[in-house]
């Protein structure tokens, strides 16, 4: 990239009238005339609508006839029109980054309507600042790296298998890594599924079959991810399987490691025998070993309290499912569910709740401040509505406990350089609009590893992560805008290796290589500029918003 000397800049300034939106308040001809007097400006013109086909043609003409190498347009706002003008000058052979926008409408004529004289002066000064920056602009190339069209899914539960299948079906070589000796995750211990009541093994077998039949999908069971190097599109992953190392070249990684079950030791007299968890009940139901006459289920055990503030989503439906199953087998069994808020949102789950009520399951609410007291054969619970403490006999107590984050999430998070949130679940880029992405490009998350979810959502999220991952490896290359941060060769001696830049980059785009040098991975950089503003020795440069460029605007503002 050559450094253009200021004397080489030949700037063309196009001042837009925007019909009467600008021209109606200020004299754009006078503004264009003024612009001629600015340093490095060789051509100016005023247009009626610079963004119209006519206006764009005038820009192209100006570039051709006057050999312009920088273009400044003074009109509306770069937020809507910069791409249009960049494309325009690109068509005429000019690098798109040699364009500067000056906002003299949305932030000038439209907001100073009672001060036409001042608005005119302001427009001139803003153009003076824009021209100063334009003189310092440099041609930039977008960053392009290759993308390996392969994917790795870590975790072979429902979410992982769904993601892997979708990616494989899209034609990508996909590697599914599972630390257990079989696929399926929690689906292996579940008995029946809500809200359909079908056997879990049906869904599991069908998924497993599709996985093994897919030619693009390779499964590694009893395998763990040992090490990950590289970056988006170019990962080098080391998988360890039965003591052997397997090296894979991977384009994108999907994390689907699921969640763990909580053993409620010390709560409500849990003993794994008369007082069990819902998952232990699933096993009993599978073995047809439930013969209790009075069953009580307690919801929110170890959840939605100070210890664990969250709701685990699936426990209410699981309790209802098992209650309905038991009631169907044995209508005379008494089932009482002690709950705080019953979580059955949406259309089908709410319907399920009604079914349970109609089947004779009794629901009794309790409050967090007054938890039920479990005795050997009775449970004492205070209910607000009735206004009394009741004593409920039981011969089987089932505790609905939340899903919790895996113990090894931290290890995996460190390998992938992705964050965990306060409950140690993985933290996505943005809860609302980027729920399957991590802030670091190239890694995706789905299923209970992110947050406790039911099967329907696990499946949806598996597809979703596959969809998101596919946007990267659907192309041979990954391209990012050239306005990134970089540490130029000639500034390397300024870098003291203090690593403050690494600390402040939210995208983990900066790291130290084997030679202990600071490396900014271009394809991960989003161009925010925080590292540049922070670098203790002013070594890092932010392209297109360099110190020099911004200072030139400041000096022009000062009137020099």
């Amino acid at each position, binding site marked *: 990239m050559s450094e253009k000397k200021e004397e080489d800049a030949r700037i063309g300034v196009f001042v837009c009238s925007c019909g009467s939106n600008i021209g109606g308040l200020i004299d754009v001809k006078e503004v264009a005339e003024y612009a001629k007097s600015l340093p490095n400006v060789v051509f100016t013109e005023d247009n009626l609508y610079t963004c119209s086909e006519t206006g764009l043609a005038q820009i192209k003409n100006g570039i051709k006839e006057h050999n312009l190498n920088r273009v400044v347009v003074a009109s509306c706002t770069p937020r*809507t029109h910069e791409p249009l003008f960049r494309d325009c000058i690109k068509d005429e052979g000019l690098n798109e980054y040699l364009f500067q926008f000056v906002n003299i409408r949305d932030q000038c004529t439209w907001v100073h309507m009672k001060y036409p004289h001042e608005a005119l002066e302001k427009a001139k000064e803003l153009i003076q600042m824009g021209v100063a920056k334009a003189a310092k602009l440099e041609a930039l190339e977008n960053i392009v790296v290759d993308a390996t069209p392969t994917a790795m899914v870590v975790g072979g539960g429902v979410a992982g298998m769904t993601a892997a299948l979708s990616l494989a079906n899209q034609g990508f070589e996909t590697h599914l890594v599972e630390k257990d000796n079989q696929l399926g995750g929690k689906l292996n211990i579940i008995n029946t599924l809500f809200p359909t009541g079908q056997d879990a093994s049906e869904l599991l077998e069908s998924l497993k079959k599709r996985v093994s039949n897919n030619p693009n999908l390779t499964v590694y069971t009893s395998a763990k991810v040992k090490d990950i190097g590289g970056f988006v599109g170019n990962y080098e992953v080391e998988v360890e399987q039965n003591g052997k190392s397997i090296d894979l070249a991977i384009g994108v990684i999907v994390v689907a490691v699921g969640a763990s079950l909580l053993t409620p030791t010390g709560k409500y007299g849990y003993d794994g025998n008369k007082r069990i968890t819902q998952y232990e009940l699933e096993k009993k139901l599978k073995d047809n070993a439930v013969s209790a006459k009075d069953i009580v289920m307690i919801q929110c055990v170890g959840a939605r309290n100070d210890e664990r503030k*969250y709701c685990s989503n699936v426990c209410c439906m699981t309790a209802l499912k098992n209650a309905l199953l038991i009631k169907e087998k044995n209508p005379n069994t008494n089932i009482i569910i002690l709950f705080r*808020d019953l979580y059955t949102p949406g259309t089908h789950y709410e319907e399920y709740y009604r079914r349970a009520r109609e089947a004779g399951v009794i629901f009794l609410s309790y409050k967090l401040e007054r938890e039920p007291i479990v005795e050997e054969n009775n449970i004492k619970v205070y209910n*607000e509505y009735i206004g009394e403490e009741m004593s409920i006999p039981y011969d089987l107590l089932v505790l609905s406990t939340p899903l919790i984050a895996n113990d090894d999430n931290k290890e995996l998070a460190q390998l992938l350089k992705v964050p965990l949130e306060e409950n140690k679940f993985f933290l996505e880029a943005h809860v609302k609009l980027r729920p399957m992405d991590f802030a670091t490009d190239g890694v995706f998350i789905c299923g209970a590893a992110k947050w406790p979810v039911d099967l329907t959502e696990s499946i949806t999220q598996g*597809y979703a992560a596959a*969809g998101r991952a596919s946007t990267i490896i659907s192309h041979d290359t990954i391209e990012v805008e050239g306005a990134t941060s970089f540490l130029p060769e000639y500034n390397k001696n300024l870098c003291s290796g203090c690593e403050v830049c690494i600390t402040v980059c939210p995208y983990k785009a900066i790291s130290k290589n084997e030679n202990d040098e600071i490396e900014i991975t271009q394809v991960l950089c989003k161009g925010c500029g925080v590292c540049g503003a922070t670098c203790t020795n002013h070594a890092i440069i932010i392209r297109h918003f360099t110190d020099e460029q911004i200072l030139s605007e400041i000096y022009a503002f000062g009137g020099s």
Partner: protein
Amino acid sequence: MVKNSKSVLIIGAGIAGIQAALDLGDMGITVHLIEKNPVIGGKMAQLDKTFPTLDCSICILAPKLSECYRHPNINIYTLSEVQKIEGSIGDFTVEVLKRARYVKEDACTNCGDCAKICPVRGIPNYFDANLKNMAAVYIPFPSAVPPVHIIDKNSCVYLNYGICGLCATSCGAEAIDFTQKDEILEIEKIGAIIVAPGYGLMEDVNPLTKYGYKKCRNVVTSLEFERLICASGPLEGHLRRLSDGVDPKKIAFLQCIGSRSDRDQKYCSSICCMYCTKAAMIAYEHNNDLESYVFYIDMRAGGKGFQTFLRRGADEYNIKYIKSKISQINVDLDESPIITYEDYDTSEIKQMKVDLAVLATCIIPSQGIEKLADVLGIELNRYNFIKTDPFLPVETSMEGIFTCGCAREPMDIPRSVAEASGAAARAAEVIKGG
């Protein structure tokens, strides 16, 4: 980049449709995005802030709208509806009715001169939940995409009576075109279809009279409340009672209006528990003297960070949660709502007078869903949402036609976005897998 010859048609350009379009577009697949409104963005564009992050809704949505508009692989058709489809998975042909905008999309600079001069005013703007009026030539909100004005053909006097035409004469870009006609477009070689028409609101079909809606100006729906507290809404974010302009000091948020009800809809609308707390928080930020009461049956907050959000509401935003069942709302002489309810904790019937009552109305299937389902040949479930199998959540009953978001069940934005990416993945499997 391998250009796929088959494209994907997406019906509905709310957040789900937009997300699916962006994902498919980014995969290199051509997308036809069909939207019946004049602009894209759906309901999310109308919200002030979103839970649980309290992000400004349009701020996080606008970049996606721009990206969609500029994306080389996405073709947007607004004022358009699918009329007919033929073919099957891998090769559909779709007939789209594109209504006339009467403004040339490639000429309009969105300067707004036409709207300023139009003599026909007083038309309720659907974007502002009909709380603010607009002219017959309008754009629903300033940062809308496409950034092009529209003429409402029902209200325009030129189109109906041949008089006026002031907008055409005042438009410097000569963008007004009264000669435009509705068009029928035929789009061929569609590999897969994604149906994402979003949801409707109960107040559109149910007068909610027993809650005092329309009778009392201080009983508003949640969407109306969003527009009232929105910085770019009819009151510019200064919440006031619509009857007398006084700042409300006591606001009631009533959940499950029309949901979980034997009389109206039996199902749960999922998101009201969260958005009522959110709305109360935003109102509190505007006025620290505010007392908010949330009337609920069960608090449903299973999503990430949701429980903590509710706790904050109770601890920091002066929100009191009353487990209850609402009976009705009457109106006091000063147009203040009086809520009659059964307090669950004391099993008493009580009354509470408030300054403003916000109804969290039931989320119903999108208007016109039955006709759309008919056209596409897909089944609806018993609630009239699009029918899907719980373990094939984005597939409709017709192969090659996928669905996502509130079209199939009431859900929040994170789930809609995830489902949209999921539907995109399934559609991509069809296009790429063959």
